[in-house]
């Protein structure tokens, strides 16, 4: 499966919330699953292939001032 086709299942989303320490009821998970899954799918599109040696744009203060 390519990254662009990724859509997390309800079980995967539930496991991610549990791992993150969030208490999400099964009713809440079911009610919002479509929003969770579609947004995570959109986010995964930024994990595009062929980023090569590109460094992330981060704000670490290398100057130590």
């Amino acid at each position: 499966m390519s990254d662009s086709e990724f859509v997390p299942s309800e079980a995967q989303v539930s496991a991610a919330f549990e791992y993150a320490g969030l208490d999400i009821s099964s009713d809440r998970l079911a009610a919002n699953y479509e929003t969770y899954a579609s947004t995570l799918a959109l986010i995964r599109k930024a994990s595009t292939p062929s980023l090569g040696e590109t460094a992330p744009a981060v704000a670490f203060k290398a100057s130590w001032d």
Partner: protein
Amino acid sequence: MELYELPMIEVSEKIRAKEVSPVEVTQSSLARLEEVEPRLTAFATITPELALEQAKIAEKEISDGNYRGPLHGIPLAVKDLYDTAGVSTTSSSAQRTDYVPDTDSVSVAKLYEAGMVLIGKTHTHEFAYGATTPTTGNPWAPDRTPGGSSGGSGAAVASGVVHVALGSDTGGSIRIPAALCGTVGLKPTFGRASRVGVASLSWSLDHVGPLTRNVVDSALVMAAMSGYDRTDPGTVDVPVPDMVTGIAAGVAGKKIGIPVNYYTEQISAEAAQAAANAAATLEALGAELVEVRIPMAEHIISTEWAIMMPEATAYHMDYLRNSPEKFTDETRTLLEVGAAELATDYINALRLRTLIQAAWTEMFSSIDVLLAPTLVAAATLRSDPFIRWGDGTVEGATPAYVRLSAPANVTGLPSLSVPAAFTADGLPLGVQIIGKPFAEPEILQFGYALEQNTDVVGRIAPVAAKTAS
């Protein structure tokens, strides 16, 4: 004519010349607030006692010959995300109902130093996480959204309560309400101004800046807010330019990029026409229009959300684990998504941002500025925050409004939204001028040229009981 109805620079001149007192100006602002606030709910907190106290101090300073400049004695509204010492700062959230900061945010401290007077704190979409500000009405049609997240600031300026209100912009939250309410809105270059003391949505994408009635107001306020701050690792140690002196230099000979993709897709005919008319106005003033293709357009929105969401969740993680019920359901849901995002997806979005920045640098090698619609459409109904497109697609107001403003957040480039037209229904539309890094003076010149050659900048909404159709 009431004092609040005059342009800010005319009020400033009257204060400088001691023709009016900051106390009279403040009283005029508070009277207008009292008149329109019941229909708009733009303010989370109103500070009349503090305002009059600050105004009296300004009056005495000016009387004693200590005039500080054109912002001295001018009323100010501040988004409720900004810390204000001794004044409730809720971020429009039940999570912070009781939060009263001890110190001012850096921006507020700088504007106090310039002599401004705090009228009150304006509503935000909860913690700036959305583009509709449900608490607040649009001054041109109170049943419509003012946009967000700085919706209270947009409403306060458009209704004439203040000439200046502060906003913050992570995916368009200054420019979206500016466009929907018919005000000027300036998102500066990432790094131009300190965010210290402003509740964060996304450290990598947050910007602070003003919403104002006229373009020169934004120039004055942005210059006063700007500058390196060692306590904000996002700020850059570059000189703060004079943003006002050359503002009337004109646009003759300048090259304006006109996008042929991205900003042209899934957009209302009226919004597209407003941008085309603005381009034609600038061309008639001697600028050259150059068609450009937006690079890496397909990655902009995914990059924006992939960076913003986990950063927002990281900031709010304690609340999310311990008191999630105090968030609105909308905010809570978005924060939950951020908790489920892989770290590798976040890092790859940051890597993609590096590539987008490089590609946009290349695009800007052949143009001075980019001109585009600020938004895809005018204000939606508050009760129905969706846009229905001709092809049957239904798009939520927040993702729809963010679409055209997010590129300037991902790239960090400065963007000025200026009122450009009114729809047939009487709702404002805006255009944005995106500039090169730290070129705020240049985009302000373009905005000023549009203001001087059109009749839609600087209007005050009547805030009538009727609503737009």
